[in-house]
């Protein structure tokens, strides 16, 4: 029993780590642009499809596939930014969101046109059996995901709080007008943040498909849902909150799957979000990324 709990916690942490990267990407875009980008997950899916295509046609190594996933996601992200967000920068947030939904559909169509089968195998990060340790089974690839996520989050924290670029990003998040009066070009910051968030999404996507061993067009919706859910659980708009929200989401899923069965897995997470909002309606409006490190 205790061992099961422990095992669930470890599995949940690994899943939570990959959700954390998705949630961090979402939060960066939301924090800077104050816009929800529904195409974030589908752009990640395009990156993973680019990697899959390379794998199928050239049997490229994992490093190349990871780079392809990042490059594909950043390209798809740039397309989304130009079409959905650049034209609506000072205009309607709803228009930008609806436009990003339209691109989501485009991305799914594109993916199924290029690779029409529903499922493609993706090379695993680590082949072979999990390591047995004190009765627990530890998957080396899951540990790698945890490690990469932790390093990326730490780097991002450093970038935002210790560099000139980070200062400009946080100033822009606080108030784009005031930032431009300080000599910062908010338009440039928007584009760079979009690229950064997409690159993080690409890494997340690669890690996810390389641990699951498969790619489907459903990855886009899946990534958008997990990222949004984790971001909302964490209180919308704070990076630390998004990371905590993602880790909590991983735990809820792992434990509810074990105790209640797989069909309860997602439901419990949504119920928790519902309960959180019902109990504390201001939950999503109290945080911001720009806060000083203290």
């Amino acid at each position, binding site marked *: 029993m205790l061992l099961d709990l422990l095992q669930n916690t470890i599995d949940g942490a690994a899943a939570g780590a990959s959700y954390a990267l998705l949630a961090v990407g979402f939060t960066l875009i939301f924090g800077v642009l104050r816009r929800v980008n529904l195409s974030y997950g589908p752009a990640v899916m395009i990156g993973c499809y680019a990697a899959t295509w390379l794998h199928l046609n050239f049997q490229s190594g994992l490093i190349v596939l990871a780079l392809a996933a990042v490059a594909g996601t950043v390209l798809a992200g740039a397309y989304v930014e130009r079409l959905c967000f650049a034209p609506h920068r000072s205009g309607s947030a709803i228009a930008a969101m609806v436009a990003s939904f339209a691109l989501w559909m485009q991305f799914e169509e594109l993916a199924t046109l290029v690779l029409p089968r529903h499922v493609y195998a993706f090379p695993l990060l680590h082949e072979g059996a999990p390591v047995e340790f004190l009765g627990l089974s530890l998957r080396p690839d899951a540990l790698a995901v945890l490690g990469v996520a932790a390093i990326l989050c730490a780097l991002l924290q450093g970038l935002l709080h210790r560099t*000139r670029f980070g*200062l400009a990003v946080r100033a822009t998040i606080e108030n784009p007008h005031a930032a431009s009066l300080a000599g910062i070009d908010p338009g440039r910051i928007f584009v760079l943040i979009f690229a950064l968030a997409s690159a993080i999404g690409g890494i997340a996507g690669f890690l996810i498909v390389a641990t699951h061993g498969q790619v489907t067009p459903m990855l886009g919706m899946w990534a958008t849902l997990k990222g949004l859910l984790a971001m909302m659980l964490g209180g919308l708009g704070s990076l630390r909150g998004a990371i905590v929200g993602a880790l909590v989401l991983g735990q809820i899923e792992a434990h509810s799957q074990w105790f209640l069965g797989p069909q309860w897995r997602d439901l419990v997470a949504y119920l928790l979000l519902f309960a959180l909002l019902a109990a504390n309606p201001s939950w999503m409006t109290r945080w911001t990324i720009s806060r000083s490190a203290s």
Partner: protein
Amino acid sequence: MAPLLEVRDLVTAYGKIEALRGVSLAVQEGSITCLLGPNGAGKTTLMFSIAGILRPRRGSIRLGARDITGRAPHVIVAAGIALVPENRLVFANMSVLENLRAGAYQRRGGAEIESDIERLMLRFPRLRERAAQNAGTLSGGEQQMLAVARALMSRPRLLLMDEPSLGLAPLVVEEIFRIIAELHRDGTTILLVEQNAHLALQVAQHFYLIEQGKVSFSGSPGALAEDEVIRRAYLGSAAR
């Protein structure tokens, strides 16, 4: 002597409504020039047009020899104009120190920036006390000082100040004006929008009265018409 700032026939509109209807003015290097006029006369619109937040429809704005009409705000900061906006707009969730560093965003050379911060902390001792605090926790007067200090961090050739006394207690207003006088003594060129015409005319060398989007009167304080100017600055000519 050619003026540092020269605005010519400037027209800025919000949709169909022209808030500025052909404003011309000049600011001499090293002077304090103030803009007076009733609410809604177009003073803030003029400041926003000069700072690049609003794009003028017609006319030109020159800083020294350079035409900066319609350029983006960050380009205008780089050209040498810094605006202290009306509601201060400090970065509330960032520390006082970070606010100052953000003001120097266009500049290179960390050592020089740090020594400028050190100098501003001497001028604004309250900011030193609160250096690590988030700007949002500062009082209104302290935020105003931070906004001025942040603008100075870009080492502007021209400082635009929009209603620096707005909503502040009389003692704090006095302090702000003492700082304005100090900046002037050190050679900073200032274009000041101020509701408190009495105070403004005490520090300014030149003033423009703006009414309904146009310059209706200009001159130097101390001239005969001063009482009339002050009356119109508060009430507008419609109250005549």
